[in-house]
């Protein structure tokens, strides 16, 4: 009796497994699958959630108009919590679900880890936010595209701003030791040294999540730095800024688009005032952008958060390329991305040979009265 029920159980399990195998490929034929990978939970979810929403909004609109190449588009999301070790699994999962193109990943470190896997499977990947220069400049990832300018473009802008607009002479460069923050910081240091106009008085990494940063803050003060250029994300930035201000330091704080996030202002509160951060150009006058922002507001009833426009752009660019290519073939999509201009919320763009968007750029913002304001 016991044996029989056991056998029945095994039969049921095997049956269920078979079902999965059968239904998977069965569905694959009728839809175009858009994978969306990135941080959808955890510390950095505020960077990743907007990309899912952007993808869904664009896809809903396109599906309502009849889809791409006459097929409906399906969005498959997969969470990598911005961790490289998780991202490889995320990529494998998406590939096993037979995605045609991928929107993502969000963080540079995670993107880099996942790219090798996509490359082997010949899948076009477009990130709305991974700004590490190597991703395009190394030439290792021919299937990688992005709708955001790379870190060195950003570092150059921040350094020029510090030297030419603020006329600073002594600058401390601090980073969070991560791929993104350190990459940005190293470029900033390089550009500062090359300019010969200012001295890098300190170049250091801090440990993310440490109990406090008082020693590093003391060191910034000890070196008489007029400004800190920080490469990293908002949790560490707000801790450092808060501690500097509590120590009555007036040191200027300049950072990257990891800090140009409303969470930074929310967490640092009054201490955020006056902080500079670079971020994607303000394109709020662009009609497509107005439409994209409104669509988000109507559906989710709140502000859209970081990288939403870039993700919206990437979704449009990817689906447009499939439409223009006439198939989901890797080579055809690549060619379409590089040759066909497309109207998007961040302007009219196409991609260069390395995968960077032509037409996307950065500007410097400052926190004024609890809001990021673009500086002209």
């Amino acid at each position, binding site marked *: 009796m016991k044996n029989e029920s056991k056998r029945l159980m095994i039969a049921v399990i095997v049956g269920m497994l078979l079902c999965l195998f059968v239904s998977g490929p069965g569905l694959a034929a009728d839809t175009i699958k858009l994978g969306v990978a990135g941080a959808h939970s955890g510390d950095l979810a505020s960077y990743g959630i907007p990309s899912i929403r952007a993808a869904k909004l664009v896809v809903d609109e396109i599906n309502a108009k009849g889809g791409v190449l006459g097929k409906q588009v399906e969005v498959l999301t997969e969470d990598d919590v911005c961790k490289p070790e998780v991202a490889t699994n995320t990529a494998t999962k998406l590939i096993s679900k037979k995605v045609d193109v991928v929107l993502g990943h969000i963080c540079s470190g995670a993107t880099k880890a996942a790219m090798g896997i996509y490359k082997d499977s010949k899948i076009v990947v477009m990130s709305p936010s991974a700004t590490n220069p190597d991703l395009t400049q190394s030439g290792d990832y021919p299937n990688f595209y992005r709708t955001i300018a790379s870190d060195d473009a950003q570092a150059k802008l921040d350094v020029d701003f510090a030297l030419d607009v603020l006329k600073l002479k002594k600058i401390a460069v601090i980073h969070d030791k991560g791929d993104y923050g350190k990459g940005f910081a190293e470029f900033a240091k390089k550009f500062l040294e090359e300019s010969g106009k200012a001295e890098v008085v300190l170049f250091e990494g801090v*440990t993310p999540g440490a109990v*406090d940063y*008082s*020693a590093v803050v*003391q*060191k910034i003060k*000890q070196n008489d730095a007029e400004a800190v250029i920080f490469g990293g994300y908002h*949790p560490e930035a707000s*801790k450092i800024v808060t501690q500097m201000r509590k*120590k009555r330091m007036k040191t200027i704080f300049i950072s990257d688009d990891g800090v140009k996030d409303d969470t930074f202002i929310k967490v640092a509160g009054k201490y955020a005032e006056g902080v500079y951060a670079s971020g994607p150009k303000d394109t709020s006058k662009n009609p497509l952008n107005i439409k994209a922002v409104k669509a988000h507001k109507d559906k989710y009833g709140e502000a859209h958060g970081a990288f939403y426009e870039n993700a919206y752009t990437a979704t449009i660019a990817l689906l447009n390329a499939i439409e223009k290519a006439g198939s989901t073939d890797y080579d055809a999509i690549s060619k379409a991305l590089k040759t066909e201009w497309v109207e998007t919320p961040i302007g009219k763009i196409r991609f260069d040979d390395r995968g960077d968007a032509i037409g996307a750029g950065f500007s410097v913002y400052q926190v004024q009265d609890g809001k990021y304001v673009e500086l002209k």
Partner: protein
Amino acid sequence: MDWEYFLELFLGGLTRGSIYALIALGYTMVYGIIELINFAHGEIYMIGAFTALIVATVLSMLGLNQVAILICAAVAAVVYSCAYGFTVEKLAYKPLRKAPRLSALISAIGMSMFLQNYVLLAQTSDFLPFPSLIPDFEFWEPYAHIISSQELVILITTFVVMILLTILIKFTRIGKAMRATAQDKVMAALVGIDVNQVISVTFIVGSATAAIGGVLIASHIGQINFYIGFIAGIKAFVAAVLGGIGSIPGAVLGSLVLGWTESFFTGYISSDYEDVFAFMFLVFILIFRPAGILGRSDTQKV
């Protein structure tokens, strides 16, 4: 030698060490009594900070004054954390009292993950702003560039907590019972000590100090999330081992030494390798004093 810089680093290290000490006390007391490394302890600290945040948000909406909010929030945090500490012990460790030590250790790790994810789901994964509950004192302003009012409050509070704890352990009945239980559980039970009660009290006292640490650091740093307990917990655990796990003065000394090591190393050499150096130092101390700075190396019980 720049003395002001040295002083700033010294005080920075002292503040950081104080926070570690408030958490490390819980580790070391629990280990002293039931020889269990309570990995869920860092989470108790995090829960303290979250309770304080919730209470502070509600009270500031009612428009109470800042010091009153701080005190109410701290009391609520202590009460809640104690309740959690007490419950964790009853649920996850007491049923395993007779089981091999490894089972209780795994149970502790499980409890830590459970509490972390519970807060993640019940609250949020985002960093939350924590109001600056400790005011900037007017009279302290001339020295604020060396050590801020918040850091001053942290130092004074830690000092007071240490003194109260010493009094509790040295001069009260329950303190005597705790020391007896730490020496020999069976013998303590034979002379009429309620061992279970003593263990509960130990968890409650440890949770209370951790909650105080949580409120202080959250108010100083200005942000919390569900994960803060993990890193602070690991560092405090290292501090407890460094000082000699099971020894209360050892935990305090180990914490201060760890705080200073990190602070001076960052200040004079580089912050890139802050953790590397802190752990290297731990290895170095343990090579020469395997039981920690103040730990007694007991001979194996036969």
